[in-house]
């Protein structure tokens, strides 16, 4: 029996057994006898626990799933998951306890006469910790279950996890609140010349400390946790990834602060931009472009719009204002519980495993509104990121730190 579950009255309640049953219904419809999840997003969504080591989840046609994770972390994962110790087990380098032995032991009972269909998760991703089944894992599992048929089935999870439930949405809201705490701490530290002698890594660290004090579990992004860029690094061509460096902050520099917090696998992700000490008229022109654009973007997101339609409108706005050359032409990336990042929607676009530009947003989808403004020749750039909830007529931007480019 499941041991720990949040009360239905808890704002962060997620009905995990309901998710499992929904997957099992889809498995039956797709002729899948047992599902082998290996992607981090699948593990998070099913087990509701952060699993940083290579982890699998075996979903039978009925009953509880079993999480198989590295033995050094199995007891902790079990302690934090809604699943009991019979359903969170560890693998290790021992006879009968390696990944292939355990997974095949768990799946074989559902393969009559060894035959049957195993749903697996394979594909391609730009996101490093995606967790698709590796070729070696596939070859070894196929050797252990030679009569079984393996079928790529990740669309089942992708479809079911696309529309967010209230508990998940609230987890994102709380993670975003924690990010705002980090931003307030950064502002307090750098204002009135406080930035002098500070480095990008210090900014990342003091924000992390503030967010942890507020309850954040992790600066979750694999891009180096909190991303901080100053000076020329804010305007790297077509760039939107800046792990904090040891660069010292200097008066006259732009500063971009992109913070990440995690709360119960819900993810906060918000960027704010500054000028340190002073700003030229030209710098302020860039800043106004960016802020005005973001205002437009945020009032445009709603159910029914597509990434292409939104991009067309925003690029037209940028062209009209004469800053289209500085805009990286993308306005969002996907988001879900930890491990679900980058691609939006299903794998049904013109380029495999990239966002379908004609994906039609629906109510209660979430994404990261993400815009990068970069002018390398002037060593200036700005970034906006914020988890947004798609609503019927508009969107909810979850981080509330005021949109502006401040001179501090």
């Amino acid at each position, binding site marked *: 029996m499941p041991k720990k579950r949040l009360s239905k009255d808890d704002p962060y309640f997620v009905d995990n057994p309901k998710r499992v049953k929904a997957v099992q219904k889809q498995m039956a419809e797709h002729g899948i006898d047992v599902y082998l999840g290996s992607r981090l997003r699948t593990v998070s969504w099913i087990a509701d626990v952060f699993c940083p080591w290579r982890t699998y989840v075996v979903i039978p046609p009925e009953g509880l799933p079993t999480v198989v994770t590295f033995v050094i972390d199995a007891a902790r994962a079990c302690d934090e998951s809604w699943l009991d110790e019979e359903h969170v087990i560890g693998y290790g380098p*021992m006879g009968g*306890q390696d990944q292939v032995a355990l997974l095949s032991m768990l799946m074989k009972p559902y393969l009559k006469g060894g035959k049957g269909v195993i749903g697996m998760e394979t594909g391609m991703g730009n996101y490093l910790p995606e967790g698709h089944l590796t070729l070696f894992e596939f070859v070894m599992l196929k050797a252990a279950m030679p009569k079984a048929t393996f079928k790529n089935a990740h669309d089942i999870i992708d479809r079911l996890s696309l529309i967010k439930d209230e508990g998940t949405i609230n987890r994102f809201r709380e993670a975003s609140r924690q990010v705002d705490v980090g931003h307030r701490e950064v502002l307090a530290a750098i204002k009135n010349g406080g930035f002098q002698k500070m480095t990008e890594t210090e900014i990342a660290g003091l924000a992390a400390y503030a967010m942890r004090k507020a309850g954040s579990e992790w600066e979750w992004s694999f891009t180096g946790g909190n991303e901080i860029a100053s000076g020329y690094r804010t305007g790297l061509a077509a760039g939107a990834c800046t792990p904090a460096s040891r660069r010292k902050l200097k008066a006259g520099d732009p500063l971009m602060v992109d913070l990440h917090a995690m709360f119960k696998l819900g993810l906060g992700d918000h960027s704010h931009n500054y000028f340190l000490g002073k700003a030229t008229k030209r710098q302020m022109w860039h800043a106004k472009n960016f802020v005005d654009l973001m205002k437009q973007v945020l009032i445009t997101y709603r159910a029914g719009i597509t990434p292409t339609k939104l991009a067309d409108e925003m690029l037209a706005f940028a062209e009209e204002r004469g800053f289209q050359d500085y805009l990286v032409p993308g306005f969002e990336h996907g988001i879900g519980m930890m491990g679900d990042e980058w691609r939006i929607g299903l794998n049904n676009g013109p380029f495999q495993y990239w966002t379908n530009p004609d994906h039609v947003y629906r109510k209660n989808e979430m994404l990261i509104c993400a815009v990068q403004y970069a002018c390398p020749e002037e060593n200036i750039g700005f970034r906006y990121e914020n988890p947004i909830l798609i609503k019927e007529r508009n969107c909810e931007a979850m981080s509330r730190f005021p949109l502006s480019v401040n001179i501090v």
Partner: protein
Amino acid sequence: MPEKRFKYLSKEWADEVARRCKKTLTPEKMKNITSSMITIYNKCPDGKSRAVYYKLVKGVVETVSIVEGKLPQAEFSITSDYEVFAKISRAELKARAALMSGKMVLKGNLVKALTLSPTVDRLNEVIATIPTEY
């Protein structure tokens, strides 16, 4: 008078294992655990397979029995060749090393098995003291 030697995997040997365990291993030493384990010996000298079933109740080794044919349910099962188990019983090979090298196959919850491995080591140390004819 020469010391009595027990035939490995005989009923007398199993009884001696139980007797020595009860005498030597206190419930505290055995962490008061309640569990069961079956060790399955393949390729015995007579070509057969047989098993030893161990049952611990609150840290007391309650049962040590030789099983042929249908195996009882146990929380853990360890399968290997007779010769590998014999080496462990003679203290020539550590159980952990046999598991880590894939010479033994463990079935059961690995987290719990690792927690219990020191107590199983104590059990094996007692078995190693029994004059045994392999």
